[in-house]
């Protein structure tokens, strides 16, 4: 972190060289829009496109999820004269507005433009064709509820750590190591295979879009996002976390982190700190990642970059071969 001194100095220099000095302390022109008249601004767009100060914004109103607002219908968009500081009262917008909906007031003088023939813009607009976007089908971008319930019931950390503690009860250290290694490798393999299977059985729209895009662009995105999805499902369902921190996800690497691992902590509680420190559970997570990549036919190396006993978190790096 930088020192206070440098920080203050920098702040000043940045302020000094920051673009032009804005005009402050004077009253800018007031612009009023009559929304009774300006019904379909995103269909009309005349003032927005003609203004040299680019001061209007047109924003959608009452958005409905998965459906595009029809700009031909009144009330779907609203015109706002946002950047009044850029208004020079050049009157171009007043000239082009087909319904005389704009009124500019500057220094007690009002400008409205010449009267035009009365038209109902919305009625004109609705005669024009407009291809609206409608979501292809009812969809969800979230992990399906079934994914969590199925995986958690079978592979949740509470259940598995209890099974582990039972399997190693009253065993010698050498036995524990041998039993534990096999236990966690079996667990990791079965856990991720089931997560993969459930993920395919319950696809979400995020996954569909990913696969469609990969098909179109020569497979780009399959790695890291297909394994990322399964790994996230596995951890979110079975490790009691809301999110799995992803450190890197690009075409070369997938790196993720399990902070404060509940499995590790539960082993400590159920089988003692000594057993937890053997860190046999790491075999589970490593085997899971390796199994998944093999099942997906992805050539990649899995490495641990952080461990619970040492760093207080587990971090796994999958590097593409």
């Amino acid at each position, binding site marked *: 972190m930088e020192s206070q001194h440098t920080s203050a100095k*920098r*702040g000043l*220099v*940045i*302020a000094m060289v*920051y*673009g*032009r000095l*804005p005009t*402050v*302390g004077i009253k*800018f022109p007031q612009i009023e829009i009559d929304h009774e008249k300006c019904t379909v601004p*995103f269909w009309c*767009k005349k003032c*927005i*496109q003609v203004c040299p100060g*680019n001061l*209007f*914004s*047109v*924003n959608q109103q009452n*958005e409905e*999820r*998965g*459906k*595009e*607002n029809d700009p031909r219908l009144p009330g779907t968009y609203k015109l*706002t004269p*946002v950047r009044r*500081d*850029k208004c020079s009262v050049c009157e171009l917008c007043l000239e082009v507005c087909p319904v005389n909906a704009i009124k500019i007031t500057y220094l007690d003088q009002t400008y409205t433009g010449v009267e035009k023939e009365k038209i109902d813009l919305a009625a004109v607009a609705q005669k024009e064709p407009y291809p609206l*976007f*409608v*979501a292809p089908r009812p969809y969800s*971008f*979230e*992990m399906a*509820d079934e994914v*969590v319930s199925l995986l958690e019931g079978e592979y949740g950390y509470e259940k598995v750590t209890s099974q582990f503690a039972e399997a190693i009860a009253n065993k010698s250290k050498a036995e524990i190591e041998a039993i534990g290694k096999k236990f966690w490798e079996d667990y990791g393999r079965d856990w991720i295979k089931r997560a993969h299977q459930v993920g395919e059985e319950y696809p979400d729209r*995020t996954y569909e*879009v990913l696969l469609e895009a990969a098909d*179109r*662009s020569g497979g780009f*995105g399959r790695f890291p*996002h297909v394994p*990322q*999805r399964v790994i*996230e499902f596995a951890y*979110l*369902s079975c490790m009691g976390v809301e*999110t799995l*921190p*992803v*450190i*890197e*996800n*690009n*075409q*070369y690497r997938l*790196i993720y982190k399990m902070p404060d691992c509940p499995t590790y902590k539960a082993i400590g509680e159920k089988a003692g700190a000594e057993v937890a420190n053997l860190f046999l559970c790491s075999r589970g997570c490593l085997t899971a990642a390796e199994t998944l990549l093999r099942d997906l036919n992805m050539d990649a190396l899995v490495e641990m970059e952080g461990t619970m006993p040492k760093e207080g978190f587990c971090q796994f790096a999958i590097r593409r071969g």
Partner: protein
Amino acid sequence: MCHLCELYGDANAGEGIWYLNPKNYARQMYRRRPPGYVPSGAESGPEAGIGLGGLRTVGIMEQGLDAWLQYQKGIIERARRGGGSQVVPIKDAEKIMDISSPIGLIACICRKVDRGVDERAPEEYTCMGMGVGMLKWERWPERYKGGVHLVNPDEAKEWLWKCDRLGYVHALMTFGAPYIGGFCQCEYPACSAIRGRLDFGAGLLKGHYVAKVDYDKCTGCGVCAQRCQFGALKFEVTVDKANIDPFQCFGCGLCETACPTGAIELKWRASIPALREVW
């Protein structure tokens, strides 16, 4: 060194430049939600209010210098922490394409909201969304009018060059610094970021480079003079050459890519003593 590189750079990745650090493009795809979860708030339409931020800014400008300086201090501090955007020349932009995934070409929200541009064909897109959020674009068809065209890095680079030829500035966008989720190709005044900086001194940071003219190579053809969006480059009649004000230069490199004789070169900002702290 750039303060953003100090905060978010990685000496072992991307030469320490914060936007070449692959970690700043990473994000999880899913969240564990309570059963039957229904998205609300920003999640159901995060861009609904875009372009309206200026309303408050203009009101503060009218209040006078004291109020304005107080306000500007806040926006400068936000920009310093990376809560905004930064200009990137095309040679670095190409490197970014290799470390972000997925990459979606989209219609520009600023051009839509501020200029009423209704883009429906992918070949007219001038904006780019990066990261896994792009896989969920159908949540906001209003925002991504006409869809999202997901491409691979090679297609993305080709598209960047097309935008560069058209004369659009490349500027990346953070969504909660240091997460970089967008890459704008835009121009003044339609671009909220560029106009925010030029008119209000807010947001957009200058890039890591500064353009410099080699007067031996410059023929004074004036091609570059049409390209500068920042008022830094002009054709100077007195010397019959291009002149770049290094303090106004944002390092976008549009003049460099347009110069037919290769007379303009991008210099590393930190290598120029009095520009080192000028962002």
